[in-house]
């Protein structure tokens, strides 16, 4: 019996090696977003807006129109795009420094306006590109290059939970936190990505997917140890779940 190819790279993902480190989950997030774009057949009307960080090179991998945004400002840039091109599908792709720190204001107000865009948020609890400094999502006790003694809530505050924070805003139609550390979780993440874009296609409002990801390089762990860290500490600080899923009207 002939074999059928049942799993392959999505068409929207260019055939180019990722620059990401071994075990980094950016590639997985890239793949899931491209799969969803292919699934809905929206590649030719989708515009991606990466923030600054390891994700900025998204344009090398995604075979669609891409516009760079200044650090943290991707939701504002996306707003500009969406208001000019309401028929297009606009998504941002931001890391935890970009979205949770410098760009907190932009994402909250974009969400609160119910801007009909999708924000993909890569939460790996650390600044990747700049060399492992503390992120707003850094776990308590986690050592980073700027919290050499571990993050202490008395001096650095607490890890910030973006999905939970955005979900109650009226403008938000979908907010979920997923993880990419096991195949089962990747499958769940795929559903969240599909639903987020579905929400945008149906003009239902702002959609948000937070991905828990590993940063083996800056965590100083092997990929195998990274899985354990996500499964343990990270899931404790960042519970998975769908925090908002407005029903189709």
């Amino acid at each position, binding site marked *: 019996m002939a074999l059928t190819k049942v799993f392959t790279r999505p068409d929207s993902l260019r055939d180019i090696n990722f620059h990401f480190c071994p075990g980094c989950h950016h590639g997985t997030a890239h793949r899931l977003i491209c799969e969803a774009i292919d699934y809905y057949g929206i590649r030719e009307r989708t515009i991606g807006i990466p923030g600054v960080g390891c994700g900025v090179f998204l344009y090398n991998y995604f075979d669609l*129109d891409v516009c760079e*945004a200044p650090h943290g400002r991707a939701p504002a840039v*996306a707003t*500009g795009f969406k*208001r000019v091109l309401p028929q297009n599908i606009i998504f941002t792709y931001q890391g935890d420094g970009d979205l949770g720190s410098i760009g907190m204001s932009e994402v909250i107000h974009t969400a609160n306006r119910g801007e009909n865009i999708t924000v993909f948020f890569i939460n790996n609890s650390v600044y990747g590109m700049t060399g492992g400094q503390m992120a707003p999502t850094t776990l308590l006790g986690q050592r980073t290059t700027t919290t050499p003694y571990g993050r202490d809530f008395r001096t650095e505050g607490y890890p910030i939970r973006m999905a939970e924070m955005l979900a109650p805003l009226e403008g938000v139609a979908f907010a979920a936190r997923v993880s990419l550390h096991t195949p089962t979780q990747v499958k769940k993440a795929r559903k969240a990505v599909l639903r987020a874009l579905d929400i945008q296609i149906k003009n239902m409002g702002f959609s948000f997917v937070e991905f828990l990801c590993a940063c083996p390089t800056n965590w100083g762990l092997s990929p195998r140890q990274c899985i354990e860290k996500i499964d343990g500490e990270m899931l404790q600080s960042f519970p998975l779940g769908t925090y908002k899923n407005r029903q189709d009207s």
Partner: protein
Amino acid sequence: MSERQILKGCVALAEGAIAAGYRFYFGYPITPQNDIPEYLSARLPQVGGVFIQAESEVASINMLLGAAAAGARAMTSSSGPGISLMQEGLSYMAGSELPGLVVNITRIGPGLGGIAASQGDYRQATRGGGHGDYHLIVLAPNSVQEMYDLTIKAFYLADKYRNPAMILADAILGQMKEPIFLNPPPLVLPEKPWALTGARGKKAQLIKSLYLADGEMEQHNWHLYEKYRRLEREEVLVETDLQEKMDVLLVSFGSCSRMVQSALDLARSRGIRVGFLRPISLYPFPQQAVREVSREVGKVLVVEMNTGQMWDDVRLSLYPGCRARLLARPGGGIPAPGQILAEIENLVKAGDGIDESVHQA
């Protein structure tokens, strides 16, 4: 030709933008430019446009960036401190070669300063303002009619050169009312094949300002350099009012040049031979015109509402041997025509070798 009608400067500017096909406003309130967003929040929906009050100037400029990258003519307006917050986005827009219009109805600075008229943002506007090797196209109106006309022109230049443009005005020009003609030129929106609208039936495109490969950034900056040189060759806007055998040449821009015009009339009525040169494009600065005119007259008086910002550009452009003196009001005060006249008379009396000193009006 349309009927004359009396409009406020800020409203004329907004109407100019609409005549230029602009439909997307993103901005954050700050005095003294609030007439612009307030007017447009009512006006844009009437012409199928979009008005968004952004959460900050930082967001505004990036909304502008997005709209520009999507191919739209888009504008934001602000004042001093807000414009400072926009510098990051402006640098990105220049680096990504995105057109767009930023209106600066200036305040007095530095810091929170004050809201009266000032020309203290000249240097920030003409030198780039943000990080990196770039310029904004900067136009400085001096009448309500020019608030309208130059706004249209600024959109046109921004698109032509794929570079952000700025209208530099102040509270006098924003608040003043004058009769103007609303005569929009035929609206021809340029093709923007580089704009991102989705990769439908074409290769996927990218708009970016990050160049990491060896030599790539240098090449990009040389490319921008060529663009700015072309602007300097082809897009200089300057108004002159010259006489034979002038004693003094007056140089001034924006609202301040109106006071200088009054002083010019006073001086001429007293038989003093005075010339007048007004840079309308502050970048590109009319270097050549200043050089040529100053060759005819050894003494130049620059009048500015700052401590000598355009003065620097004038002195860089003077014909060798010419000297330029500065008459300044940097704190919201306005140089009165009588004070300017007195300084002109001083210069006439001064003999040949004047010094390049700063005088307070």
